[in-house]
Each structure stands twice: as C-alpha cells, then as structure tokens.
C-alpha cells in the first residue's frame, strides 16, 4: 500500500479524549507521528488570577476528572507549605486513603481501556465492573463518584465513621479477589502477550532522557515514585515502589496492575493506623511566597509551582501533569510501529489530555 496520512483523532473511538495524531503510514507501518494538541486547552491556570485562592481548590479538581482529588491535595499541600499550616494527622491519613482509592479507580479504568485498545472487549467490561466497586467506596465516603471535593486548605471536609471503615475493608477484600482472578488473563493470556510484549520499548536511559514520569518511567526500570517523599501519611506506611525492567507495553500494564494491589495494601495500612484527631485547622490570612509541591498521581509525578503575593489571588499557578511529561515518549516509540499497535502504544502512556493541556 502507498503512503497514507491517517488523521488519528481528535474524535476517535480508541481515544476517549481529543488528542490528534497525524500518522504517516506506509504499508501499515508508521513512519512519522506528529501530535497536535489544543482541543482541551481551557486556560485553567489563568483562573487562579481571578479566583480566590480557596476557590482554586475546586478549579484544580477539574484539571482532570479522573485524579481530581490528587490535584486538589497537591494544591492544598502547596498552599499549606507557604502559609505554614499544620494539617491534623487524621486529615493526612484520610487524604492518603482517598488518593489511593483514586489511584485504584484510575488504574482499573486504564487497564480496561488498555484491554479495549487491543480488542479484548470482555476484559474491559470485567475490569470496569470492578472499578464500579471502588467508585461505590468513593460515593459512600465522600458523596460523589469521581470529583470528590474533599480537600480544603488545612484539612479535609469529611470524616470516616468506624462502621464505614469495616465496610471499606470488606469491599476491598472483594475487589482484591476480583482483580486477582483477572490478573492471569491480563498478564499471561497468549493473545494479550502477543499484542503487548516487546511493543513500544523504552530503555532506562531513554526514559530518563525523555523526562518521563510515573508508571511509564517505572516500567523502564527507574525507581521513582513521589510517594517516597512521604507527603500526607505516606511516611508512616510501609511502601515499596513497583518497578519493572522490560520497558514495553506489557511492563507498563504490569506496573499498573501491581499498583492496584499495592493501593489496596496501603489503604489497609492507613485504615489500621489512622490517628484520632480533628480533621481540619482554621486558615487565617493570605499566602505569601513561592513553593513547589509534588505528589504521585496515578499517571506519575504531578508538579505544582505556586507563587503568592499576599493578595487573595495567586500570582502564578503552574501545573505540570505527568501526561505532559509522557507525550515525548509517544513521539519516540510510534515511528516504526504497525498501525494496529498504535492504540496500544498510545494508551500505554495513559494519556490524559485534559491534564496535559489544562
């Protein structure tokens, strides 16, 4: 077949989000891939100039609907660092629990979409069925399924009742059982391995050089997880980052699969060690100064730079999301791939375009 240019996106069934890739294809082999962005760019960072710094918590939650809680947590931690606010210990534990729940639902969502990308429809359905249980946990503890809005500067809005804790543990046990059951299909099935093993390999050095983040980086053998910084209550939990060394699409799915189980473990630890205290401190005054705050999002390192000048609006709010850092990986792995592997490769970095463009 002759040289064809395929406009992949912005509306494409494989991509739930409008990323546009212009693929030059020769005999179903990609020779060139150029990403075009801007379909989701809203200019959200600018809203920090016109909204009160408390209101910005709600704005940053909507940077991305999948990991909204973690965005808000990062922002609040940043402002707390500037203003020197001590967050009550119980609030840090609660933040940890909700952020891990978010990681679970995001990873399950991704694993499902990934299965869908290589045409394994029933695996997609089963994984999303498990995800609904995690969303139930979110809804029961915070009142909403996805954008949970529990963070505020100085603590959290909601508390967990003791009977909720035992219920969460019971649900988690079920979720764990379900994922273990699907794990063998996801990681060892012949057709799945055929589609993922050895596809889109990024070596350790290359990953480092491209400045990748999160599971994409860890799948290439670099041990880097922002949770090692010990923010929120992570310094009180036993935690070992998940690292794989192959650097291909299969390794990336392995990392995420293992992280789901790790999150279950972290939530259990957090629930057993949760401190008894207030859940928020009163915030007085206005922030002045600048800081950098980093947390681990499901997709990797989330980076906030906050500069405040003592007024009610921030002077600058800069958000660097992990997908933004992972886009160069696409440019590096796509050329030379078969057209049929493009969805697998694109999804393997877990693109979140609304994060990328804000």
């Amino acid at each position, binding site marked *: 077949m002759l040289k064809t240019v395929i406009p992949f996106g*912005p*509306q*494409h*069934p494989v991509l*739930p*989000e*409008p990323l546009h890739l212009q693929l030059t294809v020769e005999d179903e082999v990609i020779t060139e891939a150029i990403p075009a962005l*801007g*379909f*989701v*760019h*809203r*200019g*959200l960072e*600018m*809203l920090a100039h*016109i909204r009160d710094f408390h209101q910005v918590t*709600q*704005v940053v939650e*909507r*940077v*991305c*609907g*999948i990991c*909204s809680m973690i965005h808000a947590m990062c922002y609040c931690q940043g402002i707390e660092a500037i203003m020197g606010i001590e967050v009550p210990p119980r609030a840090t534990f609660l933040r940890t629990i909700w952020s891990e729940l978010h990681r679970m639902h995001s990873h399950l*969502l991704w694993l*499902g979409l990934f299965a869908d990308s290589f045409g394994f429809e029933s695996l*997609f*359905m*089963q994984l*999303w*069925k498990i*995800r*609904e249980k995690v*969303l139930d946990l979110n809804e029961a503890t915070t009142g909403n*399924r*996805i*954008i949970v809005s529990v963070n505020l500067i100085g603590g959290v809005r909601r508390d967990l009742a003791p009977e909720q804790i035992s219920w969460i543990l019971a649900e988690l046990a079920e979720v764990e059982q379900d994922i273990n059951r699907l794990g063998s299909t996801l990681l060892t099935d012949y057709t799945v391995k055929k589609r993922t093993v050895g596809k889109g390999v990024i070596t350790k050095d290359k990953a480092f050089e491209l400045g990748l983040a999160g599971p994409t980086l860890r799948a290439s053998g670099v041990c880097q997880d922002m949770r090692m910084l010990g923010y929120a209550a992570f310094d009180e939990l036993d935690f070992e980052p998940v690292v794989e060394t192959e650097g291909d699409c299969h390794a990336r799915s392995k990392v995420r699969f293992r992280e789901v189980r790790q999150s279950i473990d972290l939530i259990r630890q957090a629930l057993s060690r949760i401190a008894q205290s207030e859940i928020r401190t009163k915030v007085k005054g206005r922030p002045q100064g600048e800081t950098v705050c980093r947390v681990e999002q499901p997709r990797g390192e989330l980076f906030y730079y906050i500069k405040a000048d003592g007024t009610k609006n921030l002077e600058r709010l800069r958000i660097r999301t992990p997908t933004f850092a992972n886009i160069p990986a696409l440019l590096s792995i796509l050329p030379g791939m078969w057209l049929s592997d493009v969805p697998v490769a694109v999804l393997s970095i877990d693109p*979140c375009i*609304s994060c990328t*463009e804000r």
Partner: protein
Amino acid sequence: MFKKLIQKARVKSPWLLHYDCSSCNGCDIEVLACLTPVYDIERFGIINVGNPMHADILLVTGTVNYRSRKVLLNLFNQMPDPKLVVAIGTCALSGGIFREAYNVIGGVDKVIAVDVYVTGCPAKPEAIIDGVTLGLNRFTQRKEGKKAHAR
C-alpha cells in the same frame, strides 16, 4: 405503516457518538461507564459507534474551546439526519467553572442546537441514560423533514 415502524426502530436503536469537547474527563468516563456491566446501556439498543456517519445521537461533554468548536461542527455536519444532540455536564451547558477562562467559548449550545441538557459535575451515569432516553422522545415528536441545524 412503514414510517411508524421506522420511528419505532429509531427509538429502539439509538447509536451514540461521544465527543469530548475540552472536558475534564469526569463526564467522559461516566459516559463510558454507561457501557459497562453495572449500567449496560446496550439493554436499550444503544451502542457507542465512534463514527459520525453511523450515529444518531451526539453526546457532547465539556465546554467548547476555539479549536474543538471546528471539530464539533464537523462531526455534527457529518451525521446523517435525523439526529439529536445531548449536552452532558455543567461545562457543556454553560461553560461551568471554566466559563471565565480565555480559551473557552461557553456551552455547546453556542455552536450547535442542543436537544437535551444533562446537569451534574460530573453527570452521573443514571442521569446520562435518563437524558438519552428523554431525547429519544424527540424522535417521535419531531416532524419528518424538519432537520436539526447548526448555529
């Protein structure tokens, strides 16, 4: 007689096209969640076709920005009549929390005519299913020959 049959079939077999028009993903994944076992919209014959040429209903999530406006219009024009537009989530209704941002035009109805508005931030799957089935009544109400139009 045949006309009635077609009208009935339209209500029974609405095919969706989902376009994420600079949304934060919250509503998008809820739209996708509708397909999965807990909600299972295929019960109503609804399939997510992902191809504007085959679709009957356009689900739009998120605010419209300058670049996605062209895409949205393009998709809408590619869909053969009769067609419906369902706007999902606060952003798609009015621009929501982003309405003051510099690259945001506003709700979907600034670009194309919307038949059903589904509220929520994010809209729950139940609400989305309800919105779509509500829109289906439009198929029976709308007179033959009256075409949906772009603004």
